[in-house]
């Protein structure tokens, strides 16, 4: 099973994403100018920055050649995980509902956060324990999740809110404490905090991020929750 990890000018978490994915399978980088997804079974759009994030975070990256292939891959049902800037890119690409806005505190904030697993059967959480809290790092200045009231009601009703900030952890001002959300089909997820940085106790404060990559592997292999 192989993960493909996109690399944009400005990406800075792609190497950690490859390292994290290699705990559960193979992983290769895919340069943003490359339309060929190299036979990847799952795609990670990593965090950091992309194309200077001019206009809005992720606004320009979504038109890259690699993203055109990722959009097609996602529409065919392939699993796609967007982390941080990758979440912003997937929203801009229309693969996920809503948008990310500047943090309510207007500051770049880097800290460990506790997340609640709201849905335990998705392609991204079936190896996680529902209701359990994950401790993983968050670091961003554009992380405030926003969706129009009807969209928000639909994603809540449809079980698309997969991760929430635990009480007291929502520093960016996201609506309904939303940290991670899927598309309607459930094969695309955006997550603001960084599971790829939480795969070693020493450097990530926990290994809690691993269950997300394990889940993606199970989903690719057709193993249910």
């Amino acid at each position, binding site marked *: 099973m192989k993960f493909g990890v996109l690399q944009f000018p400005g990406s800075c978490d792609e190497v950690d994403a490859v390292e994290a994915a290699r705990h559960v399978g193979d992983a290769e980088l895919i340069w943003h100018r490359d339309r060929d997804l190299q036979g990847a079974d799952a795609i990670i759009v990593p965090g950091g920055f992309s194309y200077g994030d001019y*206009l*809005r975070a992720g*606004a*320009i990256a979504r*038109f890259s050649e690699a993203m055109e292939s990722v959009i097609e891959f996602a529409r065919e049902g392939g699993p796609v995980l967007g982390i941080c800037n990758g979440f912003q890119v997937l929203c*801009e690409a229309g693969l996920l509902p*809503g*948008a990310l*806005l*500047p*943090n*309510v*505190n*207007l500051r770049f904030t880097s800290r460990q956060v506790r997340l609640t697993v709201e849905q335990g059967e998705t392609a991204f959480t079936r190896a996680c324990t529902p209701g359990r809290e994950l401790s993983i790092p968050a670091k961003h200045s554009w992380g*405030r999740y*926003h*969706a*129009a009231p009807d969209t928000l009601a639909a994603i809540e009703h449809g079980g698309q809110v997969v991760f929430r900030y635990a009480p007291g952890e929502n520093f960016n*001002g996201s609506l309904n404490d939303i940290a991670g959300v899927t598309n309607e089909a459930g094969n695309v997820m955006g997550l603001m905090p960084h599971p790829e940085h939480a795969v070693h106790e020493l450097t990530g404060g926990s290994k809690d991020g691993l269950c997300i990559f394990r889940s993606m592997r199970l989903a690719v292999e057709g193993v249910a929750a």
Partner: protein
Amino acid sequence: MRARVLIRPKAGILDPQGVAVERALPALGFEGVENVHVGRLVELDVAEEGQLAPLCEKLLANPLVEDYEIEIVS
């Protein structure tokens, strides 16, 4: 054709930049200033006016969270 596109956060969406500017003003002696919103201005030359709305929708603004206004300058 020269055009200006004004992009601003949609009404009702919290605009922390506007709030920060609004809060800074009384310290400088400007009292009674309210409802500050910060947006951005894009100036561009286009071949045809018809290009403007699609390029705003697709790239310059995110219609989910921003409104835009097009002004033809010359």
